[in-house]
């Protein structure tokens, strides 16, 4: 299984990062490719349309992919729209991330029962199966690599995560069109995959041409691809692919300036900007729930009426709740100001001290799925703007949001 090694692979030209030539398959062969995976015992999980959004769920064929759909995104808004072509992957990322498959939103850890004086503990087995993730975006690969590091990288390994992460085949997709909320290019986390996949594809639609350029990222990926008729990619194909990815970069309207990011946040712990964002923030926790790297959980112990049975559950938690920082005497971060500041500072600054990378991959989910459209790139720009001699562009954006109801 391919896993993010953290190091950058070679740029994809004619030769893929796994040292094999890139191949080209017609769109019809996507079905064969998925069939090969199914025959190898993989459950296919991929993007599919549900409730006017693109979610990740079990699929049985490429027909269940969001063919001909795209997502129009902005701060606090997401709409599906019809495309003019039949693209299989003509959208970006939706409300869910792949983390739900490896770090389940709710999970029973064990049960305890009392039988007279005897106490029995029954751990819940982690149900694993071979899973093929279809259509993982470059930013999402980086997010998986970050969560791998968080859950399995240190001295204390999360056994459940590790088991669920085993036997995972990754079919990654390079991005041709960013959403308005994307900013991966500024973080070097997209729009092109570098490593951490078994196969990576770029969808090419030009006039009547509809093909996939396929890169091999692992031995397993190579064996799967061998079972599907393909041709070798030409220099022209590589040029086409470069143009597709470069176009995505050019069209990306948002950016997160990385230089001195940690220092910026550490310097601005008492910035008045936190009060301004706190006036808008609902502390509803949506940003942390949709974030592909946020990893916090809480455990709760529950007894039944008799008191003879108890169980422990693990649930997704968020630093935006009062309970999250509750200790004797109350919550440490009682104000929304403190909670937003904690989230952003952890994501972009203390995360670096903790894990060596920033905790943001530029997918833009927290911007789109914030019910009031708070934009972390704007918040960082505003912090920078306050520091620059002329007040910077951030100050201009601030005024827009400073409007209060009379």
């Amino acid at each position, binding site marked *: 299984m391919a896993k993010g090694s953290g190091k950058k692979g070679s740029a994809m030209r004619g030769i893929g990062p796994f040292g094999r030539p890139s191949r080209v398959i017609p769109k019809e062969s996507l079905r064969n490719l998925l069939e090969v995976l199914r025959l190898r015992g993989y459950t296919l999980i991929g993007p599919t349309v549900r409730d006017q959004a693109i979610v990740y769920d079990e699929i049985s064929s490429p027909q269940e992919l969001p063919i001909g759909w795209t997502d129009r995104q902005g701060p606090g808004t997401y709409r599906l729209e019809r495309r003019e072509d039949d693209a299989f992957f003509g959208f970006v990322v939706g409300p869910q991330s792949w983390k739900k498959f490896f770090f389940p939103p709710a999970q029973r850890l064990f049960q305890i029962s009392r039988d007279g004086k005897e106490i029995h503990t029954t751990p819940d087995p982690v149900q694993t199966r071979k899973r093929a993730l279809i259509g993982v975006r470059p930013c999402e690969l980086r997010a998986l690599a970050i969560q791998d590091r968080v859950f399995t990288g240190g001295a204390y390994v999360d056994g459940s995560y590790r088991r669920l992460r085993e036997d995972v085949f990754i079919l990654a997709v390079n991005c041709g069109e960013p959403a308005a909320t994307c900013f991966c290019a500024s973080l070097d986390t997209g729009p092109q995959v570098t490593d951490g996949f078994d196969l990576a594809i770029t969808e090419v639609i030009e006039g009547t041409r509809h093909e996939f350029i396929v890169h091999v990222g692992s031995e397993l990926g190579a064996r799967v691809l061998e079972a599907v008729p393909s041709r070798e990619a030409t220099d022209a194909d590589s040029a086409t692919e470069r143009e597709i990815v470069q176009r995505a970069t050019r069209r990306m309207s948002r950016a997160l300036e990385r230089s001195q990011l940690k220092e910026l946040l550490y310097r601005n712990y008492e910035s008045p900007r936190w009060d301004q964002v706190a006036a808008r923030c*609902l502390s509803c926790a949506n940003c942390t729930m949709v974030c592909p790297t946020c990893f916090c959980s809480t455990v709760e112990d529950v007894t039944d009426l008799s*008191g003879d049975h108890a169980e422990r559950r693990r649930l997704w938690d968020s630093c935006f709740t009062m*309970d999250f920082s509750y200790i004797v005497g109350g919550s440490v971060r009682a104000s929304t100001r403190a909670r937003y500041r904690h989230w952003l500072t952890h994501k972009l600054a203390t995360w670096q001290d903790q894990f060596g990378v920033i905790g943001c991959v530029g997918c833009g989910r927290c911007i789109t799925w914030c019910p*009031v459209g708070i934009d972390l790139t704007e918040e960082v720009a505003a912090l920078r703007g306050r520091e620059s001699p002329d007040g910077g562009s951030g100050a201009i954006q601030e005024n827009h949001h400073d409007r209060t109801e009379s």
Partner: protein
Amino acid sequence: MPGKRRPKLAVWKFASCDGCQLSLLDCEDELLDVAGALDIAYFPEATRSVQPGPYDLSLVEGSITTPHDAERIHQIRRDSRQLISIGACATAGGIQALRNFKDVREFTRIVYASPQYIETLRRSTPIAEHVRVDFELRGCPIAKHQLIEVISAFLNGRKPNVPTYSVCQECKRQGVVCVMVAHGTPCLGPVTQAGCGALCPSYHRGCYACFGPKETPNIPALSQWRRERLGASDLEILRSLRTFNAAAAEFERESIRHEHQNHPG
């Protein structure tokens, strides 16, 4: 629990629709366990057999709306070791707290032929405004699983797992697509306490705030977004907050603000 005296349970009703105490009878799978663990000593909705107090656990449904009830709740408190108020009426005053925003005497004059016989209070108020309450269980109606959880916690001497964060967390854990962001449907989920299991959003409806304001809600920010981005009027925002939890402090404050904006001066 053989050999042990079962704690005595009493279920009381004030101004309410009975829906919350019905939730207890609705606990079909757990009802026998409840009856096994607790001695149901006073529960007129379920049985005519009545035992005198004191009671170990009192569940109180409904709001205080009459001088008589304002007296009665004090006797119940004296008779109860632990008192848990259940439902939006008991925890926030209920839908009948809409009277709080008007002159209730005007209503009685319009509705009743002989309003002089109506003895009612100017405001409908939650139980906690009158006596000390050990725990407030929110909801209109309360969620069955939360009621069982609170009773289990009481029986086992532990803190109930009843989160006070937003409905959004339930939506996201369940994989429900956000109706506000993806469909433009007005939703009070981001300012409403979890507990219902995101019932309405999972049926593509906005949240109606049956469980009242969440911890540290920022309602003005949500209102501003609804007005500027979703095209809601002050009247629509006002009405969305004037429902089962209209008199919950944060909802009341925000709805009054929009009332003033809707009818300036």
